[in-house]
Structures are given as structure tokens and as C-alpha cells.
């Protein structure tokens, strides 16, 4: 039997469906896929907006890998992510436990913890920058406890800590909700039986809660890492990478090469490297979720 021609109304409907997606397709090509391709292209050139791009092959990548500041920036980014996620987890886990226990005013507490997350990160950064001013809000508080740091943001030893405190404050409420969702999937029976078996709190935490929380923890680490790389605006506002290189995280460094030094080639090469790093993280997350069947 020969294939019958597709009826007109079905062809028309197919075309309509395609046309409905067309605006989104054009947008994705120009503003999402395009930039990635352009980034790869430009990363192979020497380019500032003042002169035309000049093809240089992999020179930019070789230069970046030979840059001590690049490796330092990667390690600072790593330290920032690890310490930030560590403290976020500690506080967020505690918050989630409190909310999960349904203590009085739990709803109010959750709102209070969550509230900083809805503020613009840039505004949070500006306000905290003034908090950290010599003799300002933070120092007035720490002095009460006998801790004497002068100029949190102007010392290489404390600047990264100061920014980390700010971004932990800003987002920990958000992560506590994610962890709370994980805690609520733990069956009550598991906790009760461990109590009957005479497990103490630490044992319950390490042998019951933590293993059952694994999928949530994994999600937390992947999302937290990507978000920490993305959210570099506090560094832009509070420290501009300084003092010295103490807070020059990779996201800010890319911004700097692209828009302060106007070295688009190197900036693009760096964003390609970072994109690959994020891609790896995303793939790990994908693979993991497939295993969990979620």
C-alpha cells in the first residue's frame, strides 16, 4: 500500500505547532547557544573591543594554564565553595531539624531564616560592606565579645571569611528548605526503631539520618556548587577580588578580563573552561538522579 498523503489540516497543525515554538527557538539560538559558540570562537582569538579579533589558536588557553593567578583563583573558588557549603549545611541542617520538630513558632522561624534570600544579592552585599566598615556594625558587635578585628574586608586573612558570612546569611534559609524536604522523606519508623535499639543521637545521625539523606545531600552539593560559582556579585560589590588576590573567585575574574581589562579572548577562554567544569557537575547530577529513579 502506498503511503497516503498527509491531510492538509494535519500539515497545517504541524506548522502551527512549529511556529509556536519558533520565537523561543530564535531566542535560544541567539542568546544562549550563540554566546557559547561565540565564546569558543573568541577564546581562540586575541580580541579587545577596540580592535578586530585576531586568530591565535590555543594560545589563550596555554596562557591561562600558565597563569599563577588563574590557579590561585581556582583554589580560592574551591576554598570558598567548600567552606560556604560546609557552614550552610551545618546551619541549614539545624534549621531544618527545628522546623521538622514543629516546635512553637516554627513557621515564624522559617520565614525569618528564609527572608534574606528574597533580597537582591547586590543590595545585601552593599549593606554588609558597610557593616564591615572599620568601627561599623560588625566590629561594634564583635568588640562586645572581645574579638578585635579591624577592617574585615581590608585584610587578606579575613576578607574571604567576611564575604562567606554574607553569602551564607543570604542563602542558608533557602538550603534549609531543601534539606527539610529531604528530612521529611525519612520514614518515622526508621528513627523510632533506632531509638528502641538504644542508639544515641550521634549514632542516629550518622547511621540512620545521613545515609537516608544521601540523595538530598548530593543535590545540595551540586546545586550549591553551581550557585556559588554563579553568584559572584558580592565579590564585585564588596572586595573587587582584593585585597591582593584574596577574594578573586573565578566568576569575578572572568568578568574582570571581559569588562575591566577588555581582554575578551582570555575572558572567553576562561568562561569556556568554567562552562566545562559546570557541565561536568551537571552530568554527575543527571547520572545520579537517573540511578535514584527520580
Amino acid at each position, binding site marked *: 500500500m502506498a503511503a497516503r498523503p498527509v491531510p492538509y489540516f494535519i500539515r497545517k497543525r504541524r506548522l502551527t505547532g512549529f511556529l509556536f515554538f519558533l520565537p523561543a527557538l530564535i531566542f535560544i539560538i541567539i542568546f544562549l547557544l550563540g554566546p*557559547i559558540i561565540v565564546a569558543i570562537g*573568541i577564546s581562540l582569538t586575541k580580541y579587545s573591543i577596540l580592535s578586530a579579533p585576531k586568530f591565535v589558536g590555543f594560545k589563550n588557553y596555554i596562557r591561562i594554564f600558565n597563569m599563577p593567578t588563574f590557579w590561585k583563583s581556582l583554589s580560592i573558588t574551591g576554598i570558598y565553595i567548600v567552606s560556604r557549603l560546609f557552614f550552610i549545611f551545618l546551619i541549614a541542617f539545624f534549621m531544618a531539624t527545628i522546623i521538622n520538630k514543629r516546635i512553637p513558632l516554627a513557621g515564624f522561624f522559617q520565614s525569618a531564616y528564609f527572608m534574606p*534570600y528574597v533580597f537582591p544579592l547586590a*543590595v545585601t552585599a*552593599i549593606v554588609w560592606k558597610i557593616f564591615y566598615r572599620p568601627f*561599623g556594625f560588625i566590629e561594634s558587635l564583635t568588640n562586645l565579645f572581645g574579638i578585635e578585628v579591624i577592617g574585615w574586608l581590608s585584610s587578606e586573612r579575613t576578607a574571604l571569611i567576611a564575604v562567606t558570612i554574607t553569602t551564607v546569611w543570604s542563602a542558608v534559609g533557602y538550603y534549609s528548605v531543601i534539606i527539610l524536604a529531604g528530612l521529611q522523606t525519612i520514614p518515622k519508623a526508621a528513627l523510632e526503631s533506632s531509638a528502641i535499639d538504644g542508639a544515641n543521637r550521634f549514632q542516629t545521625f550518622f547511621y540512620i539520618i545521613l545515609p537516608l539523606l544521601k540523595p538530598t545531600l548530593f543535590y545540595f552539593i551540586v546545586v550549591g556548587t553551581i*550557585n556559588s560559582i554563579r553568584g559572584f556579585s558580592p565579590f564585585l*560589590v564588596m572586595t573587587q577580588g582584593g585585597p591582593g588576590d584574596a577574594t578573586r573567585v573565578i566568576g569575578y575574574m572572568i568578568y574582570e578580563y571581559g569588562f575591566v581589562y577588555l581582554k575578551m579572548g582570555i575572558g572567553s577562554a576562561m*568562561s569556556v573552561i568554567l562552562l566545562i567544569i559546570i557541565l561536568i557537575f551537571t552530568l554527575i547530577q543527571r547520572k545520579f538522579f537517573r540511578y535514584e529513579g527520580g
Partner: protein
Amino acid sequence: MLKKIRKSKKTEKVIEGMLFIVAAIIALMFLFPMVYTVISSLKPLEDITSVPMRWIPREIRLRNFIEPFIEKNFGIYFFNSALVTTTVTFLSLFFCSLAGYSLTKFDYKGKNFFFILVLMTMMVPIEITIVPLAIIVRKLGWMNSYPGLIVPVAITPFGIFWMRQFMITIPKDYAEAGRIDGLSEFGIFMKLILPLCKPALGALAIFTFMGNWNSLIWPLIVASKDQYRTITVGLVAFEGEFFTPYNHLFAMSVVAVLPTLVIFLILRTKLIKGLAMVGIKG
């Protein structure tokens, strides 16, 4: 055995009490910077800069909220933020649901590929594509313009994904009924499908509004001229000036936070759940 359980019930109560106290202390630590910001926004400048700091202001200075609008361009910044954010939100809702509709209720070649494209690009954060994006936008001649602030962020793959996930639950019969009634395909979308999507549209509207009201990096790159600065960009520029009256800065920070704060306070519980699922920033 029973005794042991009873005993553990009692210790449970004690622990709950302790948890409450620690919870309250943490809540205080989280609220205190906000309270301090609001108080500072009402202080005369000397009460902020004096050593030691004066915690309780000597007078309430409401002019802090007016002077920046007169001496600086904060009126323009707010207007720009409002204009850009609402335009982006409307464009995003329209095009994302149109694309989501296309992905769920039509059959055509390439549909599955389009969906994979959406999933792939969903992972690409603008913070990483900013350098090439700025080059593209400059080539389009959109630097320092509203199109430059609006168009490159007007559609999000996440929005398409979000609307698709919701629309997939709508039975095909709705569209068929519309066709029998003689509605055009676009008419079916506008009159029958969109009204069914109200919950998904509402949530997406809030996510989009908050995300864009709060964003800094992209508007900072597009708007180097004062005339096109949004509130976040304006605040950062104001902070970077040689002399910035801190009380003005605090006051404008309070105002900048208001729109998202009000939304949050109204929708609290729902919003916490929704935002935790989606996430708007770092």
C-alpha cells in the same frame, strides 16, 4: 521498656525547649542585620559614622528617603527596574507558555530535539556567557537601551520547561473542543489553554519578577549610562562614589528590597516551597 520510652519522652521535651531557645537566637541573628539596616536608614549620618557607634538614633530622619530621589537619579533607577522587570515578566510568560504549549499538544519533526535543547540550555547560567553575550548585544546596537536590558533575558529555558510540565497534564480534548467551535489555534491557546494554566503562570510570574528585580550583572554590563541603570546597578554605582552618605544608602537599600519583600510576606509559605524548588540565585 515502657519506662525507658517515658523517660525519653521527658528528655524529648527538654530538648525541644533547648531547640526553641537556639532557634530564637538564630532567628535574632538573622533579623538583627535587617533591623539595624532599617534603623540606620532613619539616622542622621553622624549617628552611623560616630565612634563608638550610636545604636539609638537621636532623631528620626525621614528625609533620607526623599533626598536621594532629588539629589540623585533614584527615581529613574526605580522606574527602569519596574519597567524592565514587568516587561520581562510579561514577555516571558507569553513566550514560555506558547513554547510549552507547542511542546505538549502538537506533533512535528524536531519537537523532541527542541525539548532536549531546552533542557541543555537550562543549565547555562548567564554569568558565564556574559562576555560573548555582551559582544552580541553590542553588535545589535543595544548597549545602553531598554531592548538590551530586556530582550536577552526575556525567555528562559526554565520557564519553557516549567510551562511544559504543567501543560502536559491538560487533556487534549480542550483543544479539540475549541477546534469544533471554530477557534483558531492561537485563539485556542489564548482563550482555552492559558486560563487553565493560572497556577503555573502565577508561580512563574513571581519567580521571573524576583529574579529580574534582583539581578545585577547583566544590567550592570548593558547600562553604563545613568539613564538606563536599574535600582541594583544604581545602588552599586552610588556606593562606589567618593563620598556616599551611608544613611541615604541604607534608605535606598530598604526601598530596593521592598517589592520582593512585600511579595514574600504576602505569599510566605507557598513562596518558600516554590522558591526552594526553583531557586533564584546563589
